[in-house]
């Protein structure tokens, strides 16, 4: 039995997906020996492995490949960009839960969770979770991967965790504007580090490299706290331009601008 893909965007790139056959063989081996799944599922996977698909269903377990996982992470990123932070966290709950080698309802990972492909997708998912934590004002129950109220201590710990994850990503790719801007978003939420955020985003702005509306939203807030109205209003205008149809969900508005 094969499941139809959920999105026409399944055309995720031949080149990216071309390793599927090899990874499926590895997956089948991993499943057969996994203590997490009954042996019948492993045997069924070997049978199902002959059929190419992003999502494989065998008995009552639906196996998710790394490619399907990547699609979910991309979906989460898109939701984050559009300002749907709660939706992004929901998608990440699924993707991260499975990528860590576990199960999610009837779903389980078909690929080896230790494989480099899965590790990269998982790392990207965790970075997105860190961004969601920052944009959700720290109000995310991280262990359960759910958006909602958390005590102040947990909130502060969430910000610190997000800064650590995004700071690490920035060190890995020191010239990548997306990594710089996201780290700056996290820094702006940590007491005493907003100046670092302003420097980083200001430098990107000077070079026309602020990657998205979110970067300008943070710049606007930082400028507002410094009572730099001209810089604030300019950042809001840029934010609105880059945000497009999602600007209302992303860009701040200030009393004096109304």
């Amino acid at each position, binding site marked *: 039995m094969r499941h139809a893909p959920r999105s026409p965007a399944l055309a995720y790139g031949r080149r990216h997906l071309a*390793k599927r056959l090899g990874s499926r063989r590895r997956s089948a081996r991993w499943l057969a020996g996994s203590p997490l799944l009954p042996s019948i599922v492993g045997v069924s996977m070997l049978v199902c492995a002959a059929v*190419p698909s992003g999502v494989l269903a065998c008995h009552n377990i639906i196996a998710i490949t790394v490619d399907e996982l990547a699609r979910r992470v991309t979906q989460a990123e898109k939701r984050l960009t559009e300002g749907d932070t709660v939706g992004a966290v929901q998608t990440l709950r699924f993707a991260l839960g499975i990528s860590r080698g576990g199960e999610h309802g009837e779903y389980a990972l078909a690929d080896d969770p230790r494989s480099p492909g899965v590790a990269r997708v998982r790392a990207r998912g965790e970075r997105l979770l860190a961004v969601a934590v920052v944009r959700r004002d720290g109000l995310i129950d991280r262990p359960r991967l759910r958006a909602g109220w958390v005590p102040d201590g947990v909130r502060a710990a969430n910000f610190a965790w997000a800064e650590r994850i995004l700071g690490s990503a920035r060190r890995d790719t020191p010239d990548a504007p997306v990594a710089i801007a996201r780290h700056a978003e996290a820094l702006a939420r940590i007491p005493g580090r907003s100046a670092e955020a302003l420097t980083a985003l200001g430098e990107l702005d000077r070079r026309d490299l602020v*990657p*998205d509306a979110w970067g300008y939203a943070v710049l606007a807030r930082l400028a507002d706290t410094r009572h730099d109205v001209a810089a604030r209003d300019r950042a809001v205008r840029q934010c609105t331009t*880059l945000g497009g149809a999602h600007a209302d969900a992303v860009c701040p508005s200030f009393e004096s601008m109304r």
Partner: protein
Amino acid sequence: MTRRLGPARGLARWLALYVVCALAGCDRGIAHVPEVQPSPERGAAPAAEAAERRADTPLDDVQRAATADQIARGAALALRFECARCHAHAELARPPDDANCAACHAQAARGTLEVGADDATQAEWRAHVRSYLNVPSLTFFGARLRRSAIAEMVRAPHDVRPHLAETMPRLAVSAAEAADLAAWLAPRAEATAPALPHDAATLAHGRQLVEELGCGTCHERGGEHLPARPLRVAIDAESLTRGIVLAPDLAEVPTRVRRDQLVQWLLAPRTIDPETTMPALPRSRAEAEAIAAYLWYAPIVPRAQSSVPARLPLLARRVTFAEVQARVFRRSCWHCHSEPDFNEGDGGPGNTGGFGFAGRGLSLASASAVRSGARDDAGLRRSIVRNAPGETARLVEVLLARQREEAGDARALRGMPLGLPALSAEDVQLVESWIAGGAGE
């Protein structure tokens, strides 16, 4: 991007050559046609002019055997420039499928790509995949082609195959490196070939044979009309299609083909290249020699010069990233400028590096990635969508550069998409309008 000369200038040169030959009873044979040095400037030396220069150069200038050092350097360069991404060669290991453009596209075209895609998606890919389905194998390339022509093609590619949309990409290859690569591909010395008669009657007979034997089924010769007559020999449909797509412009013969191999190539192509789809058409050596004389000496009608499309004004409406992504980035650009996280760190040649290029760090997978820019030659990241007054965004500049390259005007800035057809004026207009609108979501 075929090398061309103004029609009047080219015809005048040929007319002059003919008059001189007729008056002098000129009997220079192919054996006396020496090697042409690569033209320093593309577009300046049409095949006719090249043949003329060959005829005047001493015999001892023919191609000598490559040295072992040259061949070794060339083999190393073939690995560095990743020739095997597109071409097959007996000495090059086949790269994995995700770094093998030709193999991956061939599988997509057959619907056998082993990826996580359902039947409908596979069918969609099969319908859309067009490029890199027919790529010349390099294994026997040097057996019939001149080393100097190969070096020139590597250093400054131009369109040799009129029916093939893709061209050799403009790699960052120096003249010395191009020579070494050519030495690896064509290591053997050129032998002395017997002189061929090329009087007017012989050339007319050669032309008649070219028509009769159906050479025009696959080949063009500059701007000349070659009728597509049925081939004398049976050839299966797949080979015929491949033959048509890969058939080089016969106007290139005097600069491109080894003079000592031309007649044999026409008589029995598979004795030189067992992989070729070129059929053996001449019925005798005399016929092959007449055709060879025609291809070598007959005047060439310059091909009509293509022009750079007019730049269209910005669209009045707002253009979203989703539109640009669907119409441009996902179609042409994304294969080489993709997101590394989803392919074990490989973002394609245009992002994490490949084809001998250092990683530019450019992903075109999302609006924020595009706005993140690319590294310049000095490794400094710069915006590709900077929309300053009086400036053209880098992204638009490279798209326009590719349009110029196709019209024979290759400048320092490498055009994109690399080695693929230029974007239409309408697609460039869309990208430019998106940038003018702020390059947002």
